[in-house]
């Protein structure tokens, strides 16, 4: 077992655990959006940032992916952590205004309004990539891709061409934290060469 501290409290973790897994074990709440136990963490939403302190030195790390080490000191509620969390939530409120889940999460962390203009009031996909990862890692198909980069990034079929390799298992819809996949799903699936009934 590896011993370290979260918020000055002694905790124990198994080798290979992440800080987030340990925190969950001890009931310490760290917000997440792109994390799901079924798939490998990627540390992309950055909501789970925590502060790693060593004397005067400190830095923020993504708890979902940071491996536990003996003797480290982790703090989950510091001004730096709150600053990152607050800005991400405020930006999410503006960029995914149609998501009830994000509105609730933001409210829970004291963010009830956003200073940023809303460009697409219907948007609820935050491009966390969970749908793509579950399709690749759990279903084993890669019918979903996160295409393009930067501000142009979006979720869809590989190369944005509807695909017939999707088996309509619904894993992506289930894992999606905001329900956005229900609509994107239709853009992923193309016309199968054979009706599904004949495949069985």
């Amino acid at each position, binding site marked *: 077992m590896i011993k370290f501290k979260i918020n000055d409290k002694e905790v124990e973790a198994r080798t290979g655990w992440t800080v987030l897994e340990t925190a969950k074990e001890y009931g310490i709440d760290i917000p997440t959006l792109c994390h799901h136990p079924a798939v490998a963490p*990627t540390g992309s939403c950055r909501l789970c940032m925590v502060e790693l302190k060593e004397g005067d030195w400190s830095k923020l790390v993504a708890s979902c*992916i940071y491996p536990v080490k003996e003797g480290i000191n982790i703090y989950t509620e510091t001004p*730096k952590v709150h*600053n990152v969390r607050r*800005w991400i939530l405020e930006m*999410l409120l503006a960029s995914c205004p149609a998501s009830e889940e994000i509105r609730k999460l933001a409210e829970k962390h004291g963010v009830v309004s956003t200073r940023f203009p809303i460009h697409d009031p219907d948007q609820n996909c935050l491009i966390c990539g969970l749908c793509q990862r579950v399709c690749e890692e759990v279903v084993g198909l890669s019918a979903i891709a996160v295409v393009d980069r*930067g*501000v142009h990034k979006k979720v869809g079929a590989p190369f944005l061409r509807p695909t017939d390799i999707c088996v309509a298992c619904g894993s992506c819809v289930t894992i999606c934290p905001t329900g956005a996949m229900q609509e994107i799903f239709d853009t992923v699936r193309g016309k199968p060469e054979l009706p599904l009934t004949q495949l069985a």
Partner: protein
Amino acid sequence: MHNQSAALQHDPWRLESLDDLNKLKEQLEQKIDPDHPEIVVCHGTGCLANGSEAVSDAIQTALSDSGIKAKVIPGIKTTGCQGFCSRGPLVLIRPQGIFYQRVKPKDAGDIIEKTVAQGEIIDRLLYKDPQSGEKIVHEEDIPFYKLQDRKVLHNIGKIDPTNIDDSIIAGGYQALAKALTTMTPEKVVKEVEISGLRGRGGAGFPAGRKWRSALQAIEKKGRPVYVVVNGDEGDPGAFMDRTIMEGDPHAVLEGLILGAYALGAEQGFLYVRAEYPLAIKHLTIAMEQARAYGLLGENILNSGFSFDVRINRGAGAFVCGESTALFTSIEGKPGNPKPKYVRSVEEGLWGRPTVLNNVETWANIPLIIDKGGEWYNKIGVSHSTGTKVFSLVGKVNNVGLVEVPMGLPLSDIVEKIGGGVPGGAPFKAVQTGGPSGGCIPHSLKDTAVDFDSLTKAGSMMGSGAMIVMDDTDCVVDLGRYFLRFLEEESCGKCMPCRFGLSRMREILDGFSEGRGTQADIDDLLSLSEAIQDGALCALGSSAPNPVLTTIRYFKEEYLAHVESQKCPAGVCKDLITFQIDPDNCTGCTSCARKCPTGCISGDKKEPHTINADECIRCGICRESCKFDAIRVI
């Protein structure tokens, strides 16, 4: 890739030892007469874009047509970038070292008939020093060259990069032969540690320490280990690495082979962005020629050490210059960065120990091994040893590539070597380190240009781009420019970067459109901190730097956008109006004829006026006015 050894004057043979290499060098040297006239034409990308290929063709034609009366027929050599890009195409006449600039194909006849045949200097092609007003004949007397210390660039502009023999005459592969015959791998690592060489790609991590950590990782995990060259230089205004790869590809190769020998690597990778076709071509030729001589591949110089390398071309993503994104790209996956909680010396390419250094860092290695770590350590300043190559661009007289010892004051580089701002005004600021770096104001012009001093000033060394700005550059506009660049180039994986950079740019848009508030400045600072702390990789975490440093040093300019709705530099179109000063206007009608909206009116020889409602503030009138009559308010 056929016929790539065409530039060799003989059939290459396999070199089996240091003796063989020295014998070859002697043979090659004997064929060369140092006093034989030679016309050197710069074929760097800058000069090629300015038409230097037509110039060298014209010189060749003029030479054959002239039935030359000279006693000896000069050789014509094309080289990599000679550095003085704003003066290209450059032609150098050896052995006298006569320096001709802005040469056109029509000048070829005169160069052959006057200079080469009769030793006559052609006045119109000489460089005129903007500060003294004097014309300078010889390359070594030009301040731009005189004040430099060209070590990494030593061969560039002298050798033909497509001919390995030229490189061997200049001492190429001597360091490799020395290491393979007289040094243990441990000794090579030790020399690099002693040299104090820090990575030239941005963060300045000590190369020796990186290699040492890799050796420790190899002890735990075993081999294979990979060595990788980061040639994905992408900062706007940066062309140091391109020039090195194009002009002296063997230096990069030799450095990499030395690194591979030190670490026991059998495979290396050159990751070069696809936008550098000439660099890729020259590296490919260099690899072919080095293999033919047995300097690369199986059993190098019969030492029992085998190593080979392949080129991976980047597909246009700036973020692939980031180490983890570069690795995923080489692995054939989308170039997205990964969290670096395990260092790449332990888990890099395919999870194996990997040493990644940038082009300039690798090109320093042969110098260190050849002359010793102690020698290298004495160049520059402590903690920043050696020289650094900078690309000097923007509002500066001598645009080009310079190499200076670390620790030189910023003003020396910009004003003495760069010749200062055109027109003679002091520079306003210098952006160092590209989009990840910061803006250093004129008040800090004495800042020593080394890793630690630049970081202290809020900027960074970065890969070495220096963008000089003057009073007509707006700091808000600068911030918007770099953020726009990065929001397009962000991989979009993490939210602080994907959302944050666009949102920061939107706030800055507000300033340039007159909607900015004092609270916006505070929000910019706070959001910048969140992005620095929260972003997944260095692209995001360093992205706020230009905005942070400009707020730190030019806050009054931001406030001018807020309080008086003015853009002091006259750049932000929504905040400026163009007016004609009736005292200066002579009524020459030049501006009225050039105005694209036709909003300037007035009688000939009478002061003109601008109709502000129709004016689109393009600034063409200001550029066309010879009497300084256009005011920006």
